[in-house]
């Protein structure tokens, strides 16, 4: 497409119709366009969100009342394992990569991701990885049932599903690393002139840091599961005590991956919330630089807190004290973030469109997850909380009302830009209230259950836990059902939403993506945006 350099919007809009793109299946299978690949990631993530959600529905149905009614205990363990793996690696992570694909190039004034073919590969690995993982339900002995944490020796006891699990993890890891390389190269090399690091939107910043975390820890996970693979098939004894190995070493290696993994899922959420709250407060983000440094501090700390997942394995006193103090320290940068978001809303001019509603719910509920996280950091108290429903409640407050709500906020925020149409706000507001209310009905009672002594990962329980389990299950069914609204709202928007006029779908939205026409043209920023546009987007 031969173009003369231009920076004004009209020429972009005119050219949008002339964008050539491949048609039919080739457009998707051979996709190199960041928007197409981003869309595929988001669609895959949505599908797997419902697959993982279906597993959760069976779990909650079994736990509706004491006694076993629906599934065998072995199947129950497979369900909790697969729910965790699918939600983490299939729903949350691909959603973030999809959003990164869509938004990073248009937010930094780049024409595409830096490595488009690599981008294609990193996406297309995933359908194969999940086909492999999900088909383990069909093999003798059924799906892996050792928990998503895959601790040996238990996980070594599973038959045909075991190598399928390991290779699926390898594939997901490769996909994540390729995606992360692409994000880093894009941000480092393709920023428009004038888009300095400290002018980048926070979503870009948080993703840059997330990408470094991914590259640092996905190989660690690959190493851990490979050692387990050789233990199983080639007679090594990395984790086998009888052969001189150490089962606890797996936990150290796993959580050296696992804790940064938690932040891989939540840092981009911080980025989204840092864009949505200012937009609907009609006010710049408070403490932009502090937000960047706080994100970097959290990322650094994530590497030195891993053993707080293992306080009960019998660590020496000095290790317990170190990991308790380092874990408590995370509250400081996290607190800075929450205070900054609160200060952004303070003396703003707030309106409550669906993205803002989800961002505010994030703010409240993620903070509650942070509180229970702080309690879990205290080793003596953790001895009581460890492996109970208190922990289950904690990480669902962080991952569902944290990561997943932020993804929904992001979709409701940027969807009008992607498709050039507005969704049904009334329905989206319903989606929000149903989600927010039933999320709490579902997970808040689990704090009580954990404190009262109910361990996690059990298919049946003593009768004193019956009441709150029933409440939790009812909340679970309602929460699950209300999520069906989400794809429906998106589908309806794509098909028949009202056209969005102009560049900005929201009055207070700032940033380069809102300088493009709606829908964003297939090829955007083929010439870099002007410094004036960049400066206007980066008012902070």
């Amino acid at each position, binding site marked *: 497409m031969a173009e003369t350099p231009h920076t004004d919007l009209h020429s972009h809009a005119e050219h949008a119709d002339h964008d050539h793109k491949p048609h039919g299946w080739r457009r998707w299978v051979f996709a190199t366009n960041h928007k197409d690949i981003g869309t595929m990631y988001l669609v895959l993530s949505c599908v797997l969100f419902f697959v993982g959600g279906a597993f959760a529905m069976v779990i909650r149905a079994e736990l509706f009342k004491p006694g076993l009614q629906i599934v065998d205990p072995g199947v129950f*363990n497979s369900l909790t394992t697969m729910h965790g793996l699918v939600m983490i690696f299939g729903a949350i992570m691909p959603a973030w990569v999809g959003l990164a694909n869509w938004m990073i190039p248009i937010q930094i004034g780049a024409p595409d991701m830096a490595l488009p073919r690599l981008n294609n590969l990193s996406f297309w690995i995933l359908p194969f990885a999940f086909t492999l993982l999900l088909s383990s339900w069909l093999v003798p002995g059924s799906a892996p049932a050792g928990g998503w944490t895959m601790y040996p020796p238990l996980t070594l006891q599973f038959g045909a599903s075991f190598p399928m699990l390991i290779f699926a993890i390898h594939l997901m890891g490769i996909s994540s690393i390729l995606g992360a390389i692409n994000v880093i190269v894009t941000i480092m090399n393709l920023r428009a002139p004038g888009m300095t690091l400290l002018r980048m939107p926070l979503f870009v910043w948080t993703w840059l840091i997330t990408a470094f975390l991914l590259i640092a820890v996905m190989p660690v996970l690959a190493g851990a599961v490979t050692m387990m693979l050789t233990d199983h098939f080639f007679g090594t004894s990395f984790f086998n005590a009888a052969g001189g190995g150490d089962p606890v070493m797996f936990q150290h290696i796993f959580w050296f991956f696992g804790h940064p993994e938690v932040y891989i899922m939540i840092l981009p959420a911080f980025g989204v919330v840092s864009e949505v709250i200012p937009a609907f407060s009609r006010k710049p983000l408070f403490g932009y630089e502090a937000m960047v440094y706080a994100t970097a501090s959290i990322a650094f700390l994530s590497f030195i807190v891993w053993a707080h997942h293992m306080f009960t394995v019998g660590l020496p006193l000095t290790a*317990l004290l170190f990991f308790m103090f380092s874990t408590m320290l995370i*509250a400081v940068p996290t607190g800075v973030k929450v205070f900054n978001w*609160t200060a952004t*809303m303070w003396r703003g001019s707030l309106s409550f469109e669906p993205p803002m509603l989800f961002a505010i719910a994030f703010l409240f509920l993620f903070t509650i997850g942070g509180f229970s996280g702080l309690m879990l950091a205290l080793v003596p108290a953790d001895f009581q909380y460890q*492996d109970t429903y208190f922990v289950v409640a904690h990480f669902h407050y962080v991952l569902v009302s944290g990561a997943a709500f932020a993804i929904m906020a992001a979709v409701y925020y940027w969807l009008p830009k992607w498709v050039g149409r507005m969704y049904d706000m009334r329905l989206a507001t319903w989606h929000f209230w149903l989600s927010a*209310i039933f999320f709490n009905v579902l997970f808040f009672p689990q704090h009580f259950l954990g404190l009262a002594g109910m361990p996690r990962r059990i298919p049946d329980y*003593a*009768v004193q836990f019956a009441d709150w389990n029933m*409440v939790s299950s009812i909340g679970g069914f309602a929460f699950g059902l209300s999520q069906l609204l989400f794809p429906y709202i998106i589908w309806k928007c794509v098909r028949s939403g009202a056209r969005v006029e102009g560049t900005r779908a929201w009055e207070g939205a700032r940033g380069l993506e809102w300088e493009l026409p709606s829908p964003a043209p297939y090829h955007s920023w083929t010439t870099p945006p002007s410094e004036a546009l960049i400066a206007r987007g980066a008012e902070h």
Partner: protein
Amino acid sequence: MYRARVGSRPGIWLSLAALLAAAGMAAPAIADESSQGGWGLLNLPVGVTSISKDVYSIHMMAFWVCVAIGILVFGVMIWSIIFHRHSRGAVADVTMVHNTKVEIIWTLVPVLILVGMAIPAAHGLMLINDDSHPQLEIKVTGFQWGWQYTYPGTGVSFISKLDTRSMAASDLDSGISAYSVPHYLRNVDHPMVVPVGTKVRLLITAVDVIHSWWVPDFGIKKDAIPGYINTAWFEVDADKPGIYRGQCAELCGRGHGYMPIVVEAVSEADFQAWLKREAAAEKAATGASSS
């Protein structure tokens, strides 16, 4: 351009509906099972050991600190949500982007709060960690799925598994109501017995996969790991003899949910009598099986 207009009306109705549904659900359940005390089980037990009481006070301290911070932070957020609304004509103060003094304060104050929490936590941890000078040692071995308790030097060693009534009721579609079984899934055929007022040290290990020994009323949870011998200790208050229940807390396969722990805390005299009876019974049993 889309303006702020979408109010919280569905929210109000939904909240009401959720409350009504919860109340409707709760009423018959409370009437049926008030004796089980399920609704009232909201917090950690205070427990019957110095450790559990210490843990409880650390837990409550952390809880109230979180409540206080929560009231403050959520209060500010709610204030903004109510009073700084676009629909009320609020005008954004766009100059408010950064304030070094405030930012230093809200970095340092949390540090001080954390130090205040870390001190009692570290102190409690050192107390829990000090397993020196036990008056009684018991070896606890986890296996798929049950526990073995060995009292070294006494000839007493036995296996403790889920009781048969729970086992029968716990089958898929057993047709037996869980409510009809006393202490469903929390009862064993052969409980561990300890004397009250005695410092008991547990040596905890496992033979197959990782398990975790947990009795909430004692405030201790420790993983049972093949190849490791972990230690934990407790001393049941002299005035608190009784039966204390817990269960395995680390996923260990199909039977993970069916691995209860029952500890009977008795007086020193009763303990010695039990030990003698138990040793004699086990001797007779092995003699009988070998003849």
